[in-house]
Protein backbone atom coordinates (compact mmCIF):
# COMPACT_ATOMS: atom_id res chain seq x y z
CA UNK A 1 0.00 0.00 0.00
CA UNK A 2 2.85 2.31 0.90
CA UNK A 3 4.39 2.05 -2.54
CA UNK A 4 1.18 2.76 -4.44
CA UNK A 5 0.67 6.01 -2.53
CA UNK A 6 4.33 7.01 -2.63
CA UNK A 7 4.31 6.50 -6.41
CA UNK A 8 2.02 9.50 -6.74
CA UNK A 9 4.64 11.75 -5.13
CA UNK A 10 2.98 12.10 -1.72
CA UNK A 11 5.51 11.17 0.97
CA UNK A 12 4.35 8.28 3.15
CA UNK A 13 5.69 7.33 6.53
CA UNK A 14 4.99 3.74 7.53
CA UNK A 15 4.53 3.14 11.25
CA UNK A 16 4.74 -0.58 11.80
CA UNK A 17 6.03 -3.17 14.21
CA UNK A 18 7.47 -5.66 11.77
CA UNK A 19 10.11 -3.47 10.17
CA UNK A 20 11.51 -6.30 8.02
CA UNK A 21 8.18 -6.67 6.21
CA UNK A 22 8.06 -2.93 5.65
CA UNK A 23 11.58 -3.08 4.22
CA UNK A 24 10.66 -6.03 2.03
CA UNK A 25 7.52 -4.40 0.65
CA UNK A 26 9.45 -1.25 -0.13
CA UNK A 27 8.47 1.52 2.29
CA UNK A 28 10.98 4.37 2.16
CA UNK A 29 10.31 6.09 5.49
CA UNK A 30 9.77 3.64 8.33
CA UNK A 31 9.10 4.29 12.01
CA UNK A 32 9.12 1.22 14.28
CA UNK A 33 5.99 0.74 16.36
CA UNK A 34 5.40 -0.83 19.76
CA UNK A 35 3.66 -4.15 19.10
CA UNK A 36 1.42 -5.72 16.49
CA UNK A 37 -1.87 -5.42 18.43
CA UNK A 38 -1.08 -1.90 19.65
CA UNK A 39 1.42 -0.21 17.32
CA UNK A 40 0.92 3.25 18.85
CA UNK A 41 0.10 2.35 22.41
CA UNK A 42 1.04 0.31 25.40
CA UNK A 43 -1.84 -0.90 27.56
CA UNK A 44 0.43 -1.41 30.56
CA UNK A 45 1.04 2.35 30.85
CA UNK A 46 -1.25 4.93 32.41
CA UNK A 47 -3.48 6.85 30.04
CA UNK A 48 -1.23 9.90 30.18
CA UNK A 49 2.02 8.00 29.70
CA UNK A 50 0.54 6.02 26.88
CA UNK A 51 -0.48 9.19 25.08
CA UNK A 52 3.03 10.58 25.58
CA UNK A 53 4.43 7.43 24.02
CA UNK A 54 2.07 7.86 21.09
CA UNK A 55 3.07 11.51 20.72
CA UNK A 56 6.68 10.46 20.63
CA UNK A 57 6.03 7.97 17.81
CA UNK A 58 4.01 10.51 15.81
CA UNK A 59 6.82 13.08 16.32
CA UNK A 60 9.20 10.52 14.85
CA UNK A 61 6.85 10.04 11.92
CA UNK A 62 6.72 13.78 11.28
CA UNK A 63 10.49 13.94 11.51
CA UNK A 64 10.62 11.21 8.86
CA UNK A 65 8.24 13.11 6.60
CA UNK A 66 10.39 16.25 6.82
CA UNK A 67 13.65 14.39 6.16
CA UNK A 68 14.92 13.89 2.62
CA UNK A 69 15.86 10.26 2.01
CA UNK A 70 17.36 8.63 -1.04
CA UNK A 71 16.75 5.03 0.01
CA UNK A 72 14.79 3.01 2.55
CA UNK A 73 15.36 4.57 5.96
CA UNK A 74 14.30 3.41 9.40
CA UNK A 75 13.83 6.29 11.87
CA UNK A 76 14.61 4.66 15.23
Amino acid at each position, binding site marked *: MVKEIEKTGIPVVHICTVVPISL*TVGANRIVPAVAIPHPLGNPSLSFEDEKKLREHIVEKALEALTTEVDSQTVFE
Partner: protein
Amino acid sequence: MKLELGKININQVVIGTESKIVDGTLHICDQDIISIVLEDDRIASCHVEIANPGDKTRITPVKDVIEPRCKVDSKGGIFPGVINKMDTVGSGRTHALKGCGIMTVGKIVGFQEGIVDMSGPGAEKTPFSKIINICLVVEPKEGLEPHSYEQAVRFAGLRVADYVGKLGHDVEPDEVMTYETKPLLEQIAEYPELPKVGYVYMLQTQGLLHDTYVYGADAKHIIPTILYPTEIMDGAILSGNCVSACDKNTTYHHLNNPVIEELYAKHGKEINFMGVIITNETVYLADKERSSDWTSKLAEYLGLDGVIITQEGFGNPDTDLIMNCKKIEQKDIKTVIVTDEYAGRDGASQSLADADKLADACVTGGNANEVIELPAMDKLIGQLDYVDVIAGGFDGSLREDGTIEVEIQAITGATNELGFNHMSAKGN
Protein backbone atom coordinates in the same frame (compact mmCIF):
# COMPACT_ATOMS: atom_id res chain seq x y z
CA MET B 1 14.34 -41.12 24.95
CA LYS B 2 12.33 -44.04 23.60
CA LEU B 3 8.59 -44.22 23.11
CA GLU B 4 6.41 -47.12 22.09
CA LEU B 5 3.31 -45.78 20.42
CA GLY B 6 0.47 -48.32 20.36
CA LYS B 7 -2.19 -47.54 17.80
CA ILE B 8 -5.71 -48.73 18.51
CA ASN B 9 -7.88 -48.44 15.41
CA ILE B 10 -11.35 -47.12 16.16
CA ASN B 11 -13.86 -48.00 13.42
CA GLN B 12 -17.04 -46.89 15.11
CA VAL B 13 -18.15 -44.61 17.91
CA VAL B 14 -21.42 -45.36 19.69
CA ILE B 15 -23.12 -43.22 22.31
CA GLY B 16 -24.62 -45.28 25.12
CA THR B 17 -24.65 -45.71 28.84
CA GLU B 18 -21.21 -47.21 29.20
CA SER B 19 -17.73 -46.09 28.16
CA LYS B 20 -15.43 -48.81 26.79
CA ILE B 21 -13.61 -50.06 23.70
CA VAL B 22 -14.69 -53.41 22.27
CA ASP B 23 -13.33 -54.76 18.96
CA GLY B 24 -12.57 -51.36 17.48
CA THR B 25 -15.86 -49.86 18.63
CA LEU B 26 -15.60 -46.96 21.03
CA HIS B 27 -18.62 -46.79 23.32
CA ILE B 28 -19.02 -43.53 25.15
CA CYS B 29 -21.51 -42.43 27.74
CA ASP B 30 -22.42 -38.90 26.75
CA GLN B 31 -23.65 -38.03 30.24
CA ASP B 32 -20.20 -38.81 31.65
CA ILE B 33 -18.60 -36.61 29.03
CA ILE B 34 -21.02 -33.77 29.62
CA SER B 35 -20.30 -33.83 33.33
CA ILE B 36 -16.55 -33.71 32.61
CA VAL B 37 -17.12 -30.62 30.47
CA LEU B 38 -19.39 -28.99 33.04
CA GLU B 39 -16.82 -29.41 35.82
CA ASP B 40 -15.86 -25.94 34.66
CA ASP B 41 -18.64 -23.59 35.76
CA ARG B 42 -17.73 -21.11 33.03
CA ILE B 43 -19.47 -23.43 30.59
CA ALA B 44 -23.26 -23.20 30.66
CA SER B 45 -24.14 -26.27 28.65
CA CYS B 46 -22.74 -28.98 26.45
CA HIS B 47 -23.99 -31.75 24.24
CA VAL B 48 -22.19 -34.50 22.39
CA GLU B 49 -22.64 -35.33 18.71
CA ILE B 50 -20.88 -37.82 16.48
CA ALA B 51 -19.85 -36.99 12.91
CA ASN B 52 -18.75 -39.87 10.71
CA PRO B 53 -16.74 -39.71 7.48
CA GLY B 54 -19.15 -39.52 4.56
CA ASP B 55 -22.00 -38.05 6.61
CA LYS B 56 -23.75 -35.08 5.04
CA THR B 57 -22.75 -33.08 8.07
CA ARG B 58 -21.19 -29.65 8.53
CA ILE B 59 -19.42 -28.76 11.76
CA THR B 60 -18.70 -25.11 12.60
CA PRO B 61 -17.23 -23.13 14.36
CA VAL B 62 -14.55 -25.75 15.04
CA LYS B 63 -11.96 -24.73 17.62
CA ASP B 64 -9.63 -27.62 18.31
CA VAL B 65 -9.34 -31.33 17.55
CA ILE B 66 -7.56 -33.68 19.92
CA GLU B 67 -6.63 -37.31 19.43
CA PRO B 68 -7.38 -39.34 22.58
CA ARG B 69 -4.19 -40.82 24.02
CA CYS B 70 -3.02 -42.22 27.33
CA LYS B 71 0.21 -43.22 28.99
CA VAL B 72 0.54 -46.93 29.77
CA ASP B 73 2.77 -48.28 32.53
CA SER B 74 4.68 -45.04 32.50
CA LYS B 75 5.03 -42.21 34.89
CA GLY B 76 3.19 -39.05 34.02
CA GLY B 77 0.09 -38.48 31.97
CA ILE B 78 -0.78 -37.02 28.64
CA PHE B 79 -0.73 -33.16 28.37
CA PRO B 80 1.63 -32.75 31.33
CA GLY B 81 1.51 -29.48 33.21
CA VAL B 82 -1.96 -28.80 31.90
CA ILE B 83 -4.40 -31.49 32.93
CA ASN B 84 -1.97 -34.07 34.28
CA LYS B 85 0.74 -33.25 36.73
CA MET B 86 4.02 -31.85 35.52
CA ASP B 87 6.42 -34.54 34.44
CA THR B 88 8.70 -35.12 31.47
CA VAL B 89 6.85 -37.25 28.91
CA GLY B 90 8.01 -38.93 25.71
CA SER B 91 9.28 -42.25 27.02
CA GLY B 92 7.64 -45.52 27.98
CA ARG B 93 4.47 -46.45 26.22
CA THR B 94 1.52 -44.50 24.91
CA HIS B 95 -1.76 -45.73 23.46
CA ALA B 96 -3.50 -43.65 20.83
CA LEU B 97 -7.05 -44.07 19.57
CA LYS B 98 -6.57 -43.76 15.82
CA GLY B 99 -9.38 -42.73 13.51
CA CYS B 100 -11.21 -40.52 15.94
CA GLY B 101 -10.88 -37.11 17.56
CA ILE B 102 -12.44 -34.93 20.20
CA MET B 103 -13.61 -31.78 18.46
CA THR B 104 -14.56 -28.66 20.38
CA VAL B 105 -17.34 -26.67 18.75
CA GLY B 106 -19.25 -23.57 19.75
CA LYS B 107 -19.82 -19.86 19.52
CA ILE B 108 -16.70 -18.17 18.24
CA VAL B 109 -14.20 -16.48 20.48
CA GLY B 110 -12.44 -14.47 17.79
CA PHE B 111 -12.68 -14.47 14.05
CA GLN B 112 -10.84 -17.57 13.28
CA GLU B 113 -12.61 -20.79 14.00
CA GLY B 114 -13.21 -23.12 11.12
CA ILE B 115 -15.54 -25.30 9.11
CA VAL B 116 -15.30 -29.09 8.74
CA ASP B 117 -17.54 -30.84 6.19
CA MET B 118 -17.74 -34.61 6.51
CA SER B 119 -18.51 -35.13 2.79
CA GLY B 120 -18.44 -33.21 -0.49
CA PRO B 121 -15.77 -30.89 -1.86
CA GLY B 122 -15.02 -29.31 1.53
CA ALA B 123 -14.29 -32.72 3.02
CA GLU B 124 -11.45 -33.24 0.56
CA LYS B 125 -9.67 -30.21 2.00
CA THR B 126 -9.63 -31.19 5.67
CA PRO B 127 -8.00 -34.22 7.29
CA PHE B 128 -10.77 -34.23 9.89
CA SER B 129 -13.37 -35.48 7.42
CA LYS B 130 -11.50 -38.78 7.46
CA ILE B 131 -11.86 -39.44 11.19
CA ILE B 132 -14.86 -39.93 13.45
CA ASN B 133 -15.36 -36.69 15.34
CA ILE B 134 -16.78 -36.69 18.83
CA CYS B 135 -18.06 -33.13 18.89
CA LEU B 136 -18.42 -31.28 22.17
CA VAL B 137 -20.85 -28.48 21.40
CA VAL B 138 -20.42 -25.98 24.21
CA GLU B 139 -22.23 -22.84 25.25
CA PRO B 140 -20.40 -20.40 27.53
CA LYS B 141 -22.00 -18.67 30.50
CA GLU B 142 -23.39 -15.34 29.45
CA GLY B 143 -20.97 -12.43 29.60
CA LEU B 144 -17.90 -14.66 29.88
CA GLU B 145 -14.80 -12.77 28.87
CA PRO B 146 -13.09 -14.13 25.68
CA HIS B 147 -9.75 -15.18 27.26
CA SER B 148 -11.63 -17.08 29.87
CA TYR B 149 -14.00 -18.67 27.37
CA GLU B 150 -11.13 -19.82 25.17
CA GLN B 151 -9.38 -21.37 28.16
CA ALA B 152 -12.53 -23.07 29.47
CA VAL B 153 -13.21 -24.72 26.11
CA ARG B 154 -9.57 -25.69 25.61
CA PHE B 155 -9.40 -27.40 28.99
CA ALA B 156 -12.76 -29.11 28.48
CA GLY B 157 -11.52 -30.66 25.23
CA LEU B 158 -8.31 -31.84 26.86
CA ARG B 159 -10.12 -33.34 29.86
CA VAL B 160 -12.47 -35.28 27.62
CA ALA B 161 -9.59 -36.45 25.38
CA ASP B 162 -7.74 -37.63 28.49
CA TYR B 163 -10.83 -39.47 29.72
CA VAL B 164 -11.55 -41.13 26.37
CA GLY B 165 -7.86 -41.87 25.82
CA LYS B 166 -7.70 -43.79 29.09
CA LEU B 167 -10.35 -46.20 27.75
CA GLY B 168 -7.52 -47.53 25.56
CA HIS B 169 -5.21 -48.24 28.51
CA ASP B 170 -5.84 -52.00 28.62
CA VAL B 171 -6.66 -52.53 24.97
CA GLU B 172 -4.16 -54.46 22.83
CA PRO B 173 -3.02 -52.05 20.09
CA ASP B 174 -3.39 -53.01 16.42
CA GLU B 175 0.12 -51.76 15.74
CA VAL B 176 3.04 -50.60 17.87
CA MET B 177 5.62 -48.14 16.56
CA THR B 178 8.87 -47.48 18.39
CA TYR B 179 10.58 -44.08 18.17
CA GLU B 180 13.88 -43.32 19.76
CA THR B 181 16.18 -40.34 19.96
CA LYS B 182 19.25 -40.64 22.15
CA PRO B 183 21.09 -37.99 24.15
CA LEU B 184 23.08 -35.75 21.82
CA LEU B 185 26.54 -37.34 21.91
CA GLU B 186 25.19 -40.90 21.71
CA GLN B 187 22.88 -39.93 18.88
CA ILE B 188 25.74 -38.38 16.92
CA ALA B 189 27.83 -41.50 17.51
CA GLU B 190 25.06 -43.85 16.39
CA TYR B 191 25.10 -42.72 12.74
CA PRO B 192 28.31 -40.72 12.36
CA GLU B 193 28.25 -41.00 8.57
CA LEU B 194 24.75 -39.53 8.14
CA PRO B 195 23.91 -35.83 7.95
CA LYS B 196 22.58 -34.49 11.25
CA VAL B 197 19.11 -33.10 10.81
CA GLY B 198 16.93 -31.08 13.15
CA TYR B 199 13.43 -29.70 13.08
CA VAL B 200 12.69 -26.05 13.84
CA TYR B 201 9.10 -26.03 15.04
CA MET B 202 7.53 -22.55 15.01
CA LEU B 203 4.61 -22.12 17.39
CA GLN B 204 1.96 -19.43 16.97
CA THR B 205 2.11 -17.18 20.05
CA GLN B 206 0.67 -13.81 19.15
CA GLY B 207 -1.47 -13.31 22.19
CA LEU B 208 -5.12 -13.81 22.99
CA LEU B 209 -6.59 -16.47 20.76
CA HIS B 210 -3.21 -17.02 19.15
CA ASP B 211 -1.31 -19.04 21.73
CA THR B 212 0.43 -22.37 22.06
CA TYR B 213 1.41 -24.10 25.27
CA VAL B 214 4.48 -26.20 26.01
CA TYR B 215 4.19 -28.27 29.18
CA GLY B 216 1.61 -25.72 30.24
CA ALA B 217 3.95 -22.77 29.66
CA ASP B 218 2.70 -20.02 27.38
CA ALA B 219 5.15 -20.30 24.48
CA LYS B 220 5.22 -16.56 23.80
CA HIS B 221 7.37 -16.24 26.90
CA ILE B 222 9.84 -18.98 26.04
CA ILE B 223 13.31 -18.65 24.64
CA PRO B 224 13.76 -21.29 21.93
CA THR B 225 14.65 -24.63 23.41
CA ILE B 226 15.17 -28.27 22.57
CA LEU B 227 12.75 -31.18 22.87
CA TYR B 228 13.01 -34.85 22.17
CA PRO B 229 10.59 -35.54 19.30
CA THR B 230 8.68 -38.12 21.32
CA GLU B 231 7.71 -35.58 23.97
CA ILE B 232 5.46 -33.98 21.38
CA MET B 233 3.66 -37.30 20.77
CA ASP B 234 2.66 -37.27 24.44
CA GLY B 235 1.08 -33.83 24.35
CA ALA B 236 4.00 -31.61 25.41
CA ILE B 237 2.69 -29.05 22.90
CA LEU B 238 -0.95 -28.12 22.56
CA SER B 239 -2.95 -25.53 20.73
CA GLY B 240 -4.80 -22.67 22.36
CA ASN B 241 -5.21 -20.74 19.23
CA CYS B 242 -7.57 -19.41 16.68
CA VAL B 243 -5.47 -18.26 13.76
CA SER B 244 -7.13 -18.80 10.41
CA ALA B 245 -8.56 -22.28 10.48
CA CYS B 246 -6.67 -23.47 7.41
CA ASP B 247 -3.19 -23.08 8.85
CA LYS B 248 -3.70 -23.41 12.57
CA ASN B 249 -2.00 -26.41 14.08
CA THR B 250 -4.64 -28.14 16.16
CA THR B 251 -3.59 -30.27 19.09
CA TYR B 252 -4.28 -33.27 16.82
CA HIS B 253 -1.66 -31.94 14.39
CA HIS B 254 0.87 -31.45 17.19
CA LEU B 255 0.34 -35.02 18.50
CA ASN B 256 0.68 -36.41 14.98
CA ASN B 257 3.32 -33.99 13.73
CA PRO B 258 4.06 -35.24 10.20
CA VAL B 259 7.55 -33.71 9.98
CA ILE B 260 8.61 -35.69 13.04
CA GLU B 261 7.12 -38.85 11.51
CA GLU B 262 8.84 -38.31 8.16
CA LEU B 263 12.20 -37.49 9.73
CA TYR B 264 11.95 -40.64 11.85
CA ALA B 265 11.15 -42.58 8.66
CA LYS B 266 14.50 -41.46 7.22
CA HIS B 267 16.33 -41.75 10.55
CA GLY B 268 19.29 -44.12 10.40
CA LYS B 269 18.89 -44.50 6.64
CA GLU B 270 19.36 -41.14 4.98
CA ILE B 271 19.69 -38.82 7.97
CA ASN B 272 20.47 -38.74 11.66
CA PHE B 273 17.44 -37.06 13.27
CA MET B 274 18.77 -35.17 16.25
CA GLY B 275 15.76 -33.46 17.79
CA VAL B 276 13.35 -30.57 17.75
CA ILE B 277 14.04 -26.88 18.35
CA ILE B 278 10.84 -25.12 19.32
CA THR B 279 10.43 -21.40 18.84
CA ASN B 280 7.64 -18.85 18.86
CA GLU B 281 6.02 -16.20 16.64
CA THR B 282 5.64 -13.04 18.67
CA VAL B 283 4.30 -9.53 18.25
CA TYR B 284 7.44 -7.57 19.16
CA LEU B 285 10.27 -7.17 16.68
CA ALA B 286 12.92 -7.59 19.38
CA ASP B 287 11.33 -10.92 20.32
CA LYS B 288 11.37 -12.04 16.71
CA GLU B 289 15.05 -11.13 16.47
CA ARG B 290 15.89 -12.88 19.74
CA SER B 291 13.97 -16.04 18.89
CA SER B 292 15.52 -16.38 15.44
CA ASP B 293 18.99 -15.65 16.87
CA TRP B 294 18.40 -18.52 19.25
CA THR B 295 17.07 -21.05 16.74
CA SER B 296 20.13 -20.49 14.58
CA LYS B 297 22.43 -20.62 17.59
CA LEU B 298 20.87 -23.87 18.82
CA ALA B 299 21.03 -25.39 15.33
CA GLU B 300 24.72 -24.56 15.23
CA TYR B 301 25.29 -25.76 18.79
CA LEU B 302 23.72 -29.13 17.97
CA GLY B 303 26.07 -29.45 15.01
CA LEU B 304 23.21 -29.77 12.55
CA ASP B 305 23.77 -30.06 8.81
CA GLY B 306 20.19 -29.36 7.84
CA VAL B 307 16.80 -28.41 9.26
CA ILE B 308 13.16 -28.33 8.25
CA ILE B 309 11.39 -25.19 9.46
CA THR B 310 7.60 -25.16 9.75
CA GLN B 311 5.36 -22.16 10.25
CA GLU B 312 1.95 -21.56 11.76
CA GLY B 313 -0.33 -18.80 10.50
CA PHE B 314 0.64 -16.15 7.96
CA GLY B 315 1.32 -12.45 7.54
CA ASN B 316 3.91 -11.24 10.03
CA PRO B 317 4.88 -14.84 10.98
CA ASP B 318 6.23 -14.97 7.42
CA THR B 319 8.93 -12.70 8.81
CA ASP B 320 9.71 -15.11 11.65
CA LEU B 321 9.94 -17.87 9.06
CA ILE B 322 12.27 -15.90 6.81
CA MET B 323 14.41 -14.71 9.76
CA ASN B 324 14.82 -18.29 10.97
CA CYS B 325 15.65 -19.50 7.49
CA LYS B 326 18.10 -16.71 6.76
CA LYS B 327 19.99 -16.87 10.04
CA ILE B 328 20.26 -20.67 9.91
CA GLU B 329 21.41 -20.66 6.27
CA GLN B 330 24.00 -18.02 7.18
CA LYS B 331 25.50 -20.59 9.53
CA ASP B 332 25.91 -22.93 6.55
CA ILE B 333 23.10 -25.17 7.71
CA LYS B 334 20.75 -26.16 4.92
CA THR B 335 17.08 -25.39 5.31
CA VAL B 336 13.74 -26.38 3.84
CA ILE B 337 10.80 -24.21 4.86
CA VAL B 338 7.16 -25.30 4.97
CA THR B 339 4.54 -22.57 4.59
CA ASP B 340 1.30 -21.80 2.77
CA GLU B 341 0.27 -19.04 0.41
CA TYR B 342 -2.09 -16.04 0.28
CA ALA B 343 -1.88 -15.40 -3.44
CA GLY B 344 -5.33 -13.87 -3.85
CA ARG B 345 -8.51 -15.53 -5.04
CA ASP B 346 -7.12 -15.61 -8.59
CA GLY B 347 -3.72 -16.85 -7.40
CA ALA B 348 -2.02 -14.03 -9.28
CA SER B 349 -0.74 -12.06 -6.32
CA GLN B 350 2.40 -12.48 -4.29
CA SER B 351 2.12 -15.40 -1.89
CA LEU B 352 4.16 -14.38 1.15
CA ALA B 353 4.51 -11.17 3.15
CA ASP B 354 8.25 -11.58 3.41
CA ALA B 355 10.86 -13.29 1.28
CA ASP B 356 14.57 -13.86 0.95
CA LYS B 357 16.67 -15.48 -1.71
CA LEU B 358 18.22 -17.82 0.87
CA ALA B 359 14.82 -19.47 1.18
CA ASP B 360 15.51 -21.47 -1.95
CA ALA B 361 13.82 -24.68 -0.78
CA CYS B 362 10.18 -24.18 0.02
CA VAL B 363 7.25 -26.56 0.41
CA THR B 364 3.76 -25.04 0.27
CA GLY B 365 0.46 -26.24 1.63
CA GLY B 366 -1.40 -24.34 -1.08
CA ASN B 367 -3.12 -21.01 -1.65
CA ALA B 368 -5.51 -20.29 1.22
CA ASN B 369 -7.37 -17.62 -0.76
CA GLU B 370 -8.73 -20.14 -3.25
CA VAL B 371 -12.51 -19.99 -3.17
CA ILE B 372 -14.62 -23.08 -2.70
CA GLU B 373 -18.34 -23.63 -2.82
CA LEU B 374 -19.60 -25.86 -0.05
CA PRO B 375 -23.00 -27.34 -0.87
CA ALA B 376 -25.71 -27.42 1.77
CA MET B 377 -25.53 -30.36 4.18
CA ASP B 378 -28.33 -32.32 5.83
CA LYS B 379 -27.05 -31.87 9.33
CA LEU B 380 -25.36 -29.03 11.16
CA ILE B 381 -23.31 -29.43 14.30
CA GLY B 382 -22.74 -26.03 15.89
CA GLN B 383 -24.10 -22.85 14.34
CA LEU B 384 -23.87 -20.96 11.06
CA ASP B 385 -24.22 -17.43 12.45
CA TYR B 386 -20.55 -16.69 12.01
CA VAL B 387 -19.80 -17.88 8.50
CA ASP B 388 -19.77 -14.35 7.06
CA VAL B 389 -17.31 -13.03 9.63
CA ILE B 390 -14.79 -15.82 10.18
CA ALA B 391 -11.45 -15.46 8.42
CA GLY B 392 -11.99 -16.58 4.84
CA GLY B 393 -15.67 -15.67 4.91
CA PHE B 394 -17.21 -12.54 3.48
CA ASP B 395 -20.52 -10.74 3.34
CA GLY B 396 -22.86 -13.13 1.59
CA SER B 397 -20.73 -16.23 2.15
CA LEU B 398 -23.72 -18.04 3.52
CA ARG B 399 -26.54 -18.27 0.99
CA GLU B 400 -30.18 -18.87 1.68
CA ASP B 401 -30.12 -22.44 0.42
CA GLY B 402 -27.35 -23.30 2.88
CA THR B 403 -24.56 -23.21 0.30
CA ILE B 404 -21.45 -21.51 1.56
CA GLU B 405 -18.90 -19.79 -0.63
CA VAL B 406 -15.68 -19.23 1.26
CA GLU B 407 -11.96 -19.16 0.83
CA ILE B 408 -10.44 -22.47 1.90
CA GLN B 409 -8.86 -20.38 4.63
CA ALA B 410 -12.05 -21.06 6.60
CA ILE B 411 -11.63 -24.84 6.46
CA THR B 412 -9.88 -26.37 9.44
CA GLY B 413 -6.48 -27.75 8.47
CA ALA B 414 -6.82 -27.07 4.72
CA THR B 415 -3.37 -25.54 4.07
CA ASN B 416 -1.55 -26.92 7.10
CA GLU B 417 2.05 -25.73 7.36
CA LEU B 418 3.40 -28.85 9.04
CA GLY B 419 2.96 -30.60 5.70
CA PHE B 420 0.05 -32.70 6.99
CA ASN B 421 -1.77 -32.70 3.65
CA HIS B 422 -1.04 -33.64 0.08
CA MET B 423 -2.18 -30.29 -1.28
CA SER B 424 0.42 -27.99 -2.78
CA ALA B 425 0.38 -25.11 -5.25
CA LYS B 426 2.38 -24.44 -8.38
CA GLY B 427 2.84 -21.83 -11.02
CA ASN B 428 0.32 -22.51 -13.75
